[in-house]
């Protein structure tokens, strides 16, 4: 009962801010609404017993990626309230396609009966995830560290001042 209430509250926060992201014409409002979506999704992770993932979501996404996007907004707009509008026909087409996509996906998901679960996952300790990272997932982990290095060098190279 309490879980259901919490789910509906967090889902409402996530959905309302996701709608705000999609329909807002102002990029600053979109970025602020994205913060609401990321926070709502982090709360859903807590509800799904993924505590470490919720913390990572808040630290990396809300604390890192979102700040980067806000910096990008500030650096690339002459006025923070700059608006580029797509044409009306484009918006109508996009909304029709999106509504069809959402209804199609929801009908498919609700029509399917999922096989009985293998029992709920017990709350994972951070220790277990650390062990998995260094055993089963060692190769992706190392590839990710190389990727981060490449991204760091690449971003510094791309953003260098023009000679």
């Amino acid at each position, binding site marked *: 009962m309490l879980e259901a209430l919490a789910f509906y509250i967090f889902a409402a926060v996530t959905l309302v801010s996701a709608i705000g992201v999609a329909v807002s014409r102002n*990029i600053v409002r979109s970025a602020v609404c994205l913060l609401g979506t990321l926070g709502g*999704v982090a709360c859903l992770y807590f509800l799904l017993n993924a505590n470490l993932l919720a913390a990572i979501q808040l630290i990396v996404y809300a604390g890192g990626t979102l700040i980067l996007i806000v910096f990008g907004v500030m650096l*690339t707009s002459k006025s923070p309230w700059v608006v580029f*509008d797509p044409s009306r026909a484009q918006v109508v087409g996009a909304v029709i396609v999106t509504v069809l996509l959402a209804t199609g996906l929801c009908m498919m998901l609700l029509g399917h009966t999922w096989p009985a679960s293998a029992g709920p996952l017990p709350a994972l300790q951070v220790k277990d995830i650390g062990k998995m990272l260094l055993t089963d997932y060692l190769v992706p982990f190392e590839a990710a560290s190389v990727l981060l290095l490449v991204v760091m060098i690449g971003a510094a190279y791309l953003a260098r001042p023009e000679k």
Partner: protein
Amino acid sequence: MLQIGLQHYLVLSAIVFSLGILCMVTKRNALGILIGVELVLNAANINLVAFSRYQTGAADGHMFAVFVILLAAAEAAIGIAIFMNFYNTLQTIDVDRGDELRH
């Protein structure tokens, strides 16, 4: 209705995914498109964690979600560096203006 199951999370994630697509195709600001991509990635992450919790009972979904978050951060860093160059070249962040291979 009061028993929260896998389908609740899947439907929520399908709707967030569709809103992300809507955001991507209706924004002409390059950063708006990036924000739409973040919504889509979050929807995928909800799916991964929900399947991990309700279906497989193993932590693999969490691992995939961690890597998705990492890739999203990397993508945002490179994307914003590219948009800075775009802005330096064209003095705007409107993607419809970026229709030339050379400037």
